[in-house]
């Protein structure tokens, strides 16, 4: 291999069918300028596929087409397609030519015939309308009339040669071939001749019809080889193409409300944008209410939201939720909220998935609720439902939609998640709701079992519903028992009474202390007043005394002057006076003599 030059693979030219999912599955559509064979049992969707490809070619690229109907009359075909919004009657007038190639039962066959005349007519028609697509629908009907393997092969060749001469963008041949055993002898040859073989199947699983598509051959191209579910909506057929194997979801750090504040707190600040939340619980544990609250919060933020409910009408859900203060009708009216309810049993789980995909494409929600996702286990086999449930969640994650799904579990133990769907492993957050029965009461309890990438409360909370909406209440654990409902209420009352008592005691004590303080202050004030009075008294007494001393010394001087006392005596008297003055200035106010006298009389 070393010496040989590797040929660079040239991509096979393809042409898109415009059928959702199929172009992804086939990596681009049907082989261009080649023949594709659609095979499958009756009612498996071959004709719809072929017709829809034609319609899309006209609508999307303005390429007219020819539809040769061997099995059904044109009128039947158009009537059958009336459930799709293709506007086929209009297209049939100018863009798609229907050739009624159904031989009526009255037609007598005598000997061999061939398609050379028909192909001549088709050539003329193709040139007339400029057709770029051609479908031979139900060629098996024609081939069986040939009654002879040699003729069959010859006519198949004739068609192939015609297609080679009359270039079209794509040719589709459909044949009613069930399984691998064929009634057409040249079935193998037919397969060999075409470049692409697509198998259609319709089967019943648990009473539910499931449609499947599988590409079994694609010359010169790779393709998704599995068997994929097909569903039919107003736009026609849709294939549920596989998601790419690699997960390319971007984790968002943005938090959004799970519905109400208390729950957000328990979740460490809310749900991550684009995360998935599973709410499990036995019937009646308010799963829908929580989901409804989440929806209401999302619409409150102005985000487009999708509410998918199974087996219960949207109107009924809106009514029930309004009884607990959750108003969804206004959100529906404003166009933010789209409510879709489906009956689970009528279609397969995969059809639900395809429908959901269409809804997401249409509504472009940022938040979504599926309530309950466990219902899809009822439609079709459990293996399919399990896969679909997982894909529901992956789909939401891929679309960066924050999704909340509910699931009913039969037991009350969350560990024994009896949803059968095993979605708890892929959900980011798992909230479990249960009943606790004690003292003749049934109370709802909410636990967060897991919440990836965030702190969350590990405590059980009581979920209380009122007309103001759901609320979470603390639960009391007393003596190893969780108290709820009345018991909690009693305990709360008890706690409240205790608090009130404690507060009263405190108030009393404080008042007493305040009184004592005021008393002390009053006493201090009285004592200060006493002190002041005593000071004043003392000052008054001192000045009085001084006056008296001055007066007596003046009298003595006068007396001495009158009596002509000797100077020595006078001098001595002066000295005494100055001394007394000095004493008075020091505040004592006593003369030396008087002072001595007093000192003598002091006790």
């Amino acid at each position: 291999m070393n010496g040989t030059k590797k040929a660079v693979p040239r991509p096979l030219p393809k042409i898109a069918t415009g059928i959702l999912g199929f172009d992804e599955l086939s990596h681009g559509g049907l082989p261009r300028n080649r023949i594709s064979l659609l095979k499958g049992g009756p009612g498996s969707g071959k004709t719809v596929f072929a017709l829809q490809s034609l319609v899309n070619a006209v609508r999307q690229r303005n390429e007219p087409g020819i539809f040769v109907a061997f099995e059904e009359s044109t009128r039947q075909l158009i009537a059958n397609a009336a459930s799709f919004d293709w506007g086929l009657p209009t297209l049939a007038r100018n863009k798609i030519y229907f050739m009624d190639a159904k031989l009526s039962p009255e037609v007598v066959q005598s000997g061999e015939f061939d398609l050379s005349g028909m192909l001549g007519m088709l050539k003329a028609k193709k040139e007339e309308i400029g057709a770029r697509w051609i479908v031979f629908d139900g060629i098996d009907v024609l081939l069986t009339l040939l009654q002879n393997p040699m003729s069959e092969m010859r006519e198949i060749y004739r068609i192939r040669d015609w297609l080679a001469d009359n270039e079209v963008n794509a040719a589709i041949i459909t044949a009613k071939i069930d399984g691998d055993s064929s009634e057409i002898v040249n079935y193998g040859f037919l397969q060999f001749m075409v470049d692409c073989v697509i198998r259609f199947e319709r089967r019943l699983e648990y009473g539910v019809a499931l449609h499947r598509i599988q590409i079994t051959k694609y010359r010169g191209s790779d393709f998704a080889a599995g068997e994929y579910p097909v569903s039919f909506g107003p736009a026609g057929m849709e294939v549920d193409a596989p998601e790419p194997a690699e997960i390319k979801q971007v984790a968002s750090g943005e938090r959004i409300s799970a519905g109400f504040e208390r729950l957000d707190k328990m979740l460490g600040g809310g749900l991550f944008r684009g995360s998935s939340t599973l709410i499990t619980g036995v019937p009646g544990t308010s799963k829908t209410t929580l989901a409804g609250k989440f929806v209401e919060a999302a619409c409150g933020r102005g985000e487009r939201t999708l509410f998918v409910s199974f087996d219960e009408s949207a109107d009924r859900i809106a009514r029930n939720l309004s009884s607990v203060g959750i108003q969804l009708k206004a959100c529906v009216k404003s166009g933010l909220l789209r409510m879709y309810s489906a009956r689970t049993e009528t279609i397969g789980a995969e059809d639900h998935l395809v429908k959901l995909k269409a809804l997401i494409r249409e509504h472009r929600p940022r938040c979504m609720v599926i309530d309950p996702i466990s219902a899809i286990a009822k439609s079709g086999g459990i293996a399919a439902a399990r896969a679909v449930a997982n894909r529901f969640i992956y789909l939401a994650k891929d679309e960066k939609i924050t999704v909340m799904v509910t699931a009913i579990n039969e037991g009350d133990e969350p560990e024994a998640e009896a949803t059968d769907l095993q979605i708890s492993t892929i959900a980011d957050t798992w909230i479990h709701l249960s009943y606790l029965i004690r003292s003749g009461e049934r109370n709802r309890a909410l636990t967060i079992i897991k919440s990836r990438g965030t702190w969350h409360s590990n405590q059980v909370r009581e979920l209380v519903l009122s007309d103001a909406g759901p609320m979470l209440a603390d639960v009391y654990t007393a003596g190893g028992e969780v108290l709820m409902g009345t018991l909690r209420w009693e305990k709360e009352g008890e706690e409240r009474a205790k608090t009130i008592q404690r507060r009263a005691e405190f108030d009393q004590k404080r008042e007493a202390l305040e009184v004592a303080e005021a008393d002390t202050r009053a006493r201090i004030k009285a004592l200060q007043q006493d002190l002041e009075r005593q000071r004043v008294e003392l000052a008054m007494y001192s000045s009085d005394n001084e006056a008296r001393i001055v007066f007596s010394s003046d009298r003595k001087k006068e007396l001495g002057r009158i009596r002509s006392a000797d100077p020595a005596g006078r001098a001595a008297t002066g000295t005494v006076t100055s001394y007394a003055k000095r004493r008075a200035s020091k505040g004592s106010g006593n003369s030396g003599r008087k002072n001595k006298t007093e000192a003598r009389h002091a006790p």
Partner: protein
Amino acid sequence: MRHKKTDRNAFGPAATTVVVMCLYIANSAPNSVRAIANLEAICKEHLKDNFKLEIIDVLEYPLRALADGIVVTPSLAKMSPSPAAKIIGNLSDKSSVLRALGIQG
């Protein structure tokens, strides 16, 4: 268009009514050539001159053939007397052709 009209004895005995037919062929395709030969033999043997036959080559007049509701070639359409009938194939099975045309063989 190959056109062959034989209109003799149209008002002949009551037992013989004129059969009006149209044969759609695809040029010289083997089955078409065979059909013409087979039909001519049947007419000669059973209808004598009491028939009108139009032969249309759908490759020449494809849009007319389409309008006439022709699917495969060769196809023989009996227009009258009623009931109308349609036979496909190279007409090698003579008895079924006679039955379809309402001719006692």
